[in-house]
């Protein structure tokens, strides 16, 4: 595959599975996406939403039920994986246990018929890139989890594929190593200047790594947007829930400008999508956006629980109507204390119920 491609196009990529009872179900339903060269895209979604299915379809490990995959003007989805030339980092690394680190990394080059001298030079460069100097002659079984993971990354990128696919590559590392590897993956992506598709169910990982996030649920795409938008302006209630909008209040839209009545409370908020006056709606609030103290949309509440968390604590408050809300706040409060809680209208998101 040419490495100076312009873009990868996924056109209505669909994969259906037949279930035991004879019904077919779409594990991936109409994924359409154009990835320009150099972009880092994260597929984000809860377990079972079809992320791995999407990755396997792109890599050629699963045939498509519908749709097409194009690299510029070349149609790829009819080709076997070995002819697509995408690099893939498997969730469990899938290193060849009988080959040394060096031979694992060189495998793709060997398959492409690269000369021995060039193989050695490129493997050395890749080893340096993932900082594994001195481990070249070990077998995978003699490496730590983080080292194995870096071998897997080196093996996938050494052939300089137009597209690198990564399936939750950090899911089994400890918190510290995960942060280090995150930075490393980002750096490698920049150095290569190719495209990366990164599968994760960890929103922090997606937010910190990606140029663009694809949020999925039940096999379909719910939102495609840069991290800041997915974080601050979720397209629908499911995306909001997944992005950490843990508080929800049911109410009715009182005024199309964004006034919601819920129980005895009234909120000024921001409507997401077209909503008619009088329609049943739900307000989604992120714990970080709620403020203990007076301000816009202020209401009275009683502190019911405190989870200490260092600089900030996660505080449970109960409103006069009995609704329970989570608030992240640096303000020290006591259980049973009556407090005022407020939230800016721009951070009060209104969705159709």
């Amino acid at each position, binding site marked *: 595959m040419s490495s100076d491609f312009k873009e990868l196009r996924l056109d209505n990529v669909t994969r259906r599975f037949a279930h035991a009872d004879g019904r077919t179900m779409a594990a991936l339903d109409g994924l359409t996406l154009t990835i320009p060269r150099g972009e880092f895209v994260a597929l984000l979604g809860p377990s079972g939403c079809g992320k791995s299915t999407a990755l396997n379809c792109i*890599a*050629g*490990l699963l045939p498509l039920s519908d749709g097409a995959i194009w690299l510029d003007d070349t149609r790829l989805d009819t080709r*076997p*994986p*070995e002819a*697509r*030339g*995408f*690099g*893939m980092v*498997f969730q*469990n*690394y*899938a*290193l*060849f*246990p*009988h080959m040394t680190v060096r031979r694992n990394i060189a*495998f*793709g080059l060997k*398959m*492409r018929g690269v000369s021995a001298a060039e193989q050695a030079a490129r493997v050395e460069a890749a080893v340096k890139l993932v900082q594994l100097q001195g481990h070249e002659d070990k*077998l*995978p*079984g*003699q*490496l730590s*989890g983080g080292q*194995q993971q870096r071998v897997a990354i080196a*093996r*996938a990128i050494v*052939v300089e594929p137009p597209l690198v696919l990564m399936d939750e590559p950090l899911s*089994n590392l400890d918190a510290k190593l995960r942060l280090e590897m995150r930075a490393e993956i980002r750096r490698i992506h920049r150095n290569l200047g190719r495209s990366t598709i990164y599968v994760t169910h960890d929103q922090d990982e997606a937010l910190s790594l990606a140029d663009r996030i694809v949020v999925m649920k039940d096999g379909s795409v719910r939102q495609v947007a840069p991290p800041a938008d997915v974080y601050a302006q979720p397209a629908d209630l499911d995306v909001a829930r997944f992005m950490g909008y843990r508080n929800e209040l049911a109410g009715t839209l009182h005024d199309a400008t964004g006034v919601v009545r819920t129980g005895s409370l009234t909120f000024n908020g921001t409507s997401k999508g077209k909503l008619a006056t009088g329609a049943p709606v739900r307000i989604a609030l992120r714990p970080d956006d709620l403020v203990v103290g007076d301000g816009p949309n202020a209401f009275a509440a009683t502190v019911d629980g405190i989870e200490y968390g260092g600089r900030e604590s996660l505080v449970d408050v109960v409103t006069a109507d009995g609704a329970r809300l989570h608030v992240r706040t640096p303000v020290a409060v006591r259980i049973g204390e009556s407090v005022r809680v407020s939230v800016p209208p721009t951070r009060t998101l209104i969705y159709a119920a």
Partner: protein
Amino acid sequence: MTPTGHAGADRTPWLVAPAALFMLLFFVYPFLYGLWLSFAPKEGGMLANYAKFFSDTRLWPTIFTTLKLALPATLINVGIALPIAYRMRIKTKRQKWITTALVVPITLGTVLVAEGMLTYFGPRGWLAQVLQFLHLYDGPIRLTHNFWGVLISLVISGFPFAFLLLLSYVTGIDPVLGRAAATLGAGPWAQFRNVYLPLLIPGIAMCFCLAFVQAYSVFPSAVLLGAPAGPTRVISIAAYEAAFEQYDYSLASAIAMMMGLVQLVIVAAVLGIRRLVYRGPVTGGKG
């Protein structure tokens, strides 16, 4: 780690005690008794039986007669079982049926197989009749009561065994390794050659050893389908004759010991070669 955490409270010896006792009673004792018996001949010195074995032209050539049957049979069995087991590594309904069909001969037993072969492969058997009817081959068919009869029988009865053993080794290899190789540009043959085959070598060696030992001790089919007086006078026939026709249990024991020794030499050689290649986990996950 024991849950109680007592160092030295290892009860493993007690767990293996019944098995050890069983081995002692039914394997070690008969073996030692046979070994002793082979050194206590009816007449002559301690080594008289072995001297007789290596000087009697009705005895020592049986080592090679048997090897000539057992080695090709083992090679054929392992050689055919390997590609089929490799193809069957992905479980589907169809392949489950094929697997079952391939394994059926194991349940039949050598004697039944021999009987079937006599009617099928015999000079007036179905095979001969079909070939003649189709005018494909009109000459005489000699596939029973000779070397070929025994070889075919060894393949029929030994194949399912080799196949099942190899299938368990093949399916033990994480299929994600093959997929990883594919994303790196390896086609089907390169995947087999570079990933599966090296990981299978220990299993193939083990399978070869077990299949060989089984084939080397061939007896019923050598009698029923072979020419037990000549070309298929295998080593176990020689031992049988010594024991039950000449009533020389001591000589029979010596022949049995020679049989065991040949098996041991071949097994040791194969396992020795195996030591030269990779032995370790066959999955690509985190260790």
